[in-house]
């Protein structure tokens, strides 16, 4: 292919990417301007591509209904609780897989733990529904989701923590033993500080996945506990959907994962994102 021809093809490819960027960003644009419109303007027969009067007060009006704020609180409790549990269990297993691979069951055990991340939820939800129904706190509680989200978050935490522990040299730990540290103290004083940055990013990832989860929440909770993910699709007043408030609320709710994602971007591009990131 001749050089000038290649130049043309190159610009065609770039134009294609530009088009895709446009397609990607347009829904966000629409979400933002809708959040700033009045309810009347969102229901026009011919939609406006820029709000006539800006209504930033929509972002406050969303919280006029206490249940919306409570939904964010519920989501926060569940996401944080699950992150802590995933991180605790994942650190235990990850440490064992990295330091004592043979005694801990070997590579196959590690891959089996990881494979749970891809497990189809349909095979889990139904039995869990009846199991939690029999517990004193019932299905409709924070605990249900905190435990169930371990299905996809704990394998992720285990796997990533294993990689971080492998990178932390075991010689340092052994040296700490010589200084009279107990194994537990050596772990907390020497190894843990080394893997802390990695641990924080694992926590962020787990938190995003738990915050965003819809399916389990939709099927298992809904009266006492309502996560924002199941509140958003039901944003109606009578028969009318309050599009502007729905979009304002969804903008607020998606802010945490988007910010965390931007903080995590370097890490996402590393080889580890190989499908391990999404179950």
């Amino acid at each position: 292919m001749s050089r000038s021809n290649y130049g043309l093809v190159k610009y065609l490819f770039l134009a294609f990417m530009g088009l895709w960027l446009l397609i990607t960003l347009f829904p966000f644009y629409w979400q933002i301007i809708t959040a700033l419109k009045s309810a009347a303007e969102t229901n026009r027969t011919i939609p406006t591509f820029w709000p006539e009067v800006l209504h930033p007060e929509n972002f406050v009006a969303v919280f006029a209904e206490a249940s919306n704020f409570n939904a964010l609180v519920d989501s926060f409790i569940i996401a944080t609780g699950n992150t802590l549990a995933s991180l605790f269990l994942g650190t235990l297993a990850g440490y064992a897989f990295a330091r004592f691979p043979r005694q801990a069951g070997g590579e196959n055990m590690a891959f089996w733990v990881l494979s749970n991340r891809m497990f189809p939820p349909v095979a889990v939800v139904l039995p869990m529904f009846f199991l939690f129904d029999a517990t004193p706190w019932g299905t409709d509680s924070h605990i249900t989701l905190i435990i169930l989200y371990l299905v996809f978050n704990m394998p992720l935490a285990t796997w990533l923590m294993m990689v971080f522990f492998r990178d932390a040299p075991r010689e340092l730990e052994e040296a700490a033993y010589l200084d009279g540290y107990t194994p537990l103290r050596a772990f907390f004083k020497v190894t843990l500080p080394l893997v802390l940055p990695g641990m924080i990013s694992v926590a962020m990832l787990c938190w995003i996945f738990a915050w965003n989860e819809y399916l389990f929440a939709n099927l298992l909770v809904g009266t006492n506990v309502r996560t924002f993910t199941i509140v958003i699709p039901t944003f109606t007043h009578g028969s009318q959907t309050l599009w502007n408030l729905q979009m304002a609320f969804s903008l607020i709710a998606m802010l945490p994962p988007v910010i965390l994602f931007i903080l995590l971007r370097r890490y996402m591009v590393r080889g580890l994102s190989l499908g391990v990131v999404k179950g």
Partner: protein
Amino acid sequence: MVDGSAADEPSGGNSALGRRLDRGDPATFPEWFNTRKPRANLIVARWVPLALVGLPVLVLFCIVVYPTVWMFYHALHDTNMMRLFQSNWSWVGFENFATVLSSPRFGDSVVHLGIYLTFGACLQVLLGAALALILYELVKNNFLRVVFLIAMVLPMMLPPSIVGVLWKFLLTPSNGAINQALLNLGLIDQHIEWFNAGMSLWTIIIADVWNWTALPLLIVYSGRVSLPPAVYEAARVDGAGTWTTLRRITLPMLKEVIAIAFIVRFMDAFKFVDLVFIMTSGGPAQSSELPAYIAFQRGLREFAIGEAAAYAIIIFLVSAVLITLFLKYLKKVLKAQGFA
């Protein structure tokens, strides 16, 4: 990983140990330490590793293995809601599977799944791979590259329920933004009914392609980043052109990574159900139902537990095959990149 500098400073603060290690003073260590077997284990009791792995594995047994066994058991029984609470179910062999496999509802959902796999999953991987390579090869400005990457991966970070309502809103037939934009551009001359029987599955696919093209994009992009630059240097010295390099070096070396992207999207396809719940509820007239959706519907809304379990087991078996395949390729790629 995130912060490479942490690994460069193993001092772990101001401890005396840290300072001595920073000096790298070999006299710090007794002789047995310097001559020890390098891969010997840390000095802990035998039960410690078992206990460390045991607790998480126990949890997984409770929340994954137990439910799966439960599903297998009830897939072979005539369980429904009433019988479940009366503990009164009986063995029916493979009757539930026969019911499922012979029902037109299941047949239709498999056709839908086929359409979704072809125009959703496959399209996403091809699109994502193409975009990842365009981004890496053609955008040389570092800042722009990061900005574009974030912009293109952003949809993936959204909660599915937001993606669902956002696209439901964008595609509102009477006064939605997409219909209006297409009208303004002169591409259509009347509103498209996005949510009628012939269209609703495609509507879900459109939203899904927007949402998940980012994942194969990210996978292929990270695969391309980790290819050794030395190979490209050699190719350039040998006078290989851009196309030859792409065809003879980049694509063959990314073979496994692209395979992983396909498998990941296929695994998701068999579980895919979020957007069906939010955007169409399988309707109208079951025209956008996928197998996983029917399983939930039969089990938790219509309480035909045996049948739902049969659906779940079919999905589980397909997933198990895909997961095995995925792990095989993942091992290969991780080995090549020096992780496992």
